[in-house]
């Protein structure tokens, strides 16, 4: 059982949880994730470690309510408990070989790039950051990003905040005037794929964080498998970060839809109950 120390609503359907997990906090690094189960019968669902405090013994996650488990989680009040919380899983991000990095976060992907923005600032090489969302009410961590980034570019599909358009539009514009040697892009798979298609043309090395469907998160089920450079890899133990230009995107996107029908049903059941 892990206590929710603090719970903050950040954007429409996005909640920040500060969870007590001393062992995880002590060994976490940016880029790693945790898996939690909301309650005794819950599903195992993965979330990126957005921040951690080894001294306070806490781990911060940012969760977008998209389905059964994430909505259930949002119903636990501050001070309440999560049944299971395991981590840190996966490999830490390693961008050390790059000098001029552009970070791109789409939707909840902002949760993954924020620790990077912070880490790069701490290293004395703050980076440019593009944060994209469908609409203004879905944007989050604006203040935090402003503090961490060299330049922050906000993009919304509908223009309700920042520039109207897609992150790829902004990427194209920025790449023309900057000399990025790496793009680190995290968001929904179609967004990451679009970024990779563009950076392949621009010849910029691109790292993505793959949010495959997982069960154990330790390499025991193969459910999270994907093809990278023609080889089968496990997102949980070989990743979650991969060279985006080597990913078989058709396959990855297809595999992310395996349970679409069941998920719809689960969600209906829950929202039905909640109403």
């Amino acid at each position, binding site marked *: 059982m892990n206590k929710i120390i603090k719970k903050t609503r950040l954007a429409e359907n996005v909640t920040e949880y500060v969870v007590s997990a001393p062992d995880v906090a002590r060994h976490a690094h940016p880029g790693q994730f945790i898996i939690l189960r909301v309650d005794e019968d819950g*599903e195992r669902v993965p979330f990126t470690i957005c921040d951690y405090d080894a001294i306070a013994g806490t781990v911060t996650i940012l969760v977008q309510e998209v389905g059964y488990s994430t909505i259930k989680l949002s119903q636990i009040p501050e001070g309440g408990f999560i049944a299971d919380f*395991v*981590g840190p899983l996966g490999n830490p991000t390693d961008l050390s070989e790059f000098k001029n990095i552009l970070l791109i976060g789409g939707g909840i992907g902002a949760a993954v790039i924020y620790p990077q923005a912070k880490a790069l600032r701490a290293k004395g090489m703050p980076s440019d950051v593009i944060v994209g969302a469908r609409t203004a009410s879905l944007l989050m961590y604006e203040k935090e990003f402003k503090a961490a980034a060299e330049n922050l570019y906000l993009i919304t599909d509908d223009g309700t905040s920042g520039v109207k358009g897609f992150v790829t539009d902004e990427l194209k514009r920025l790449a023309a005037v900057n000399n990025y040697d790496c793009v680190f892009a995290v968001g929904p798979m179609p967004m990451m794929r679009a970024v990779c298609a563009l950076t392949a043309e621009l010849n910029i090395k691109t790292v993505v964080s793959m949010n495959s469907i997982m*069960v154990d998160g330790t*390499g*025991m089920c193969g459910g999270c498998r*994907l093809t990278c450079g023609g080889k*089968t890899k496990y997102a949980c133990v070989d990743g979650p970060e991969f060279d985006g230009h080597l990913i078989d995107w058709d396959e990855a996107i297809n595999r992310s839809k395996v*349970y679409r029908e069941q998920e719809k049903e689960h969600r209906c*059941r829950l929202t039905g109950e909640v109403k």
Partner: protein
Amino acid sequence: MAIEKKPRSKMPEQDPKERARNFKEVAFGYTPAMAQEEASRCMHCKNAPCMQGCPVSVNIPDFLAATASGEFEKAGDIIGKTSSLPAICGRVCPQENQCEKMCLRARVDGAVAIGNVERFVGDYMLAHGGKPQKTARTGKRVAVIGSGPAGLTCAAELSNHGVDVTVFEAFHKAGGVLVYGIPEFRLPKSLVQAEIDKLCGGGVEIKLNTVAGKTLPIEEIAKDYDAVFIGSGAGLPMFMNIPGENLNGVYSANEYLTRVNLMKAYLPNSPTPVQLGKKVTVIGAGNVAMDAARTALRMGAESVKIIYRRGREEMPARAEEIHHAEQEGIEFCLLTNPVSFCGESGWVKSMRCVKMELGEPDKSGRRSPKPVAGSEFDIETDMVIVSLGTRPNPLIKNSFAALQTSEKGTIVVNEETMQTNVDGIYAGGDAVTGAATVILAMGAGRKASKAILEKLGMQS
């Protein structure tokens, strides 16, 4: 000596048609009278060949004699001298290759049903046997990584000698393969829980959700404890690496069974989903394959086929599981090997197979299968479960470079002491042998506990 013929007492079971659609245990177990009757078939042979067949040398004639005379608790104590999980081993040991294979009565009118009687005694002990008494604590502390049969047995043995043990388990539930792999209809989870509760009665603390090498580095654990036992199993699934294997609807047996068993996807309202295949194919013919096939049937499949590249004789599963699977209507496509999977809109639709024939026996004496040229054919399938065996997960090795492992990823140990190349760190079970059996894992846990006690300067 002339003996009166008296055939083996049959195990009462659920009707195959009925049980193929439910998750209740297949076998009901002996009544006390049946157990006594069967135990009395033991001829008490001079050299007790059965004991040589048992990997942990349970004193079989003695426990059978005690059972025959109705002294069930005494029988339990006799088994308990060398085995810690009789209710489980009685259900899952491949007895036909172990104790019962050596039984001399096999030649007369069928081997004594040692496993069935052991199961009865194990169940009796769970219901009636006392908890292990609390021994005086010694202040020594040992860490155990993994809560499968190897880890649990090691922990229980140490605790019985006054050592405080912390078991670190990666999953949210203790039991290893016993809870995430072997299905409810073969090994009820309430029983596993009861064995764990009993085993861990004394000074054992189980810390769930703790991945050694991630949540806690092995070096840190080694520093905090007087010794460490690694019983992390062999959980890494193998795939065939053939085209189409990453299509939706293709599972590893590990994933399929974990979703259904551990995550309870077999219950109607489970938040964890699993695909419901109609025409299911399972590749492989070991215990894991039989479990996956029979699980798929219970999940409502119209047909389930086992695809295996060798012949009937070579199938590695327990005889009883193969028999049960056949009774339940699982089809066996033997001497058949998949070469690719074909999909439609990202979902598997069929499997291309090739016929195999058995060649000359190889060095190991097994006849190796060879494809028959031009024999390709397609099998329609909307769900494939790949069950080709598992290897130790490289996670521990990757996080702890000092640990010596083999090419296959198994941890190298001194077989006398189960100590690894690192002083004070021991290992056993599937992590050392590769995928094997419950009884061997349990035996390894015991053996290591003895060496650890010695190392700590204690009598075992």
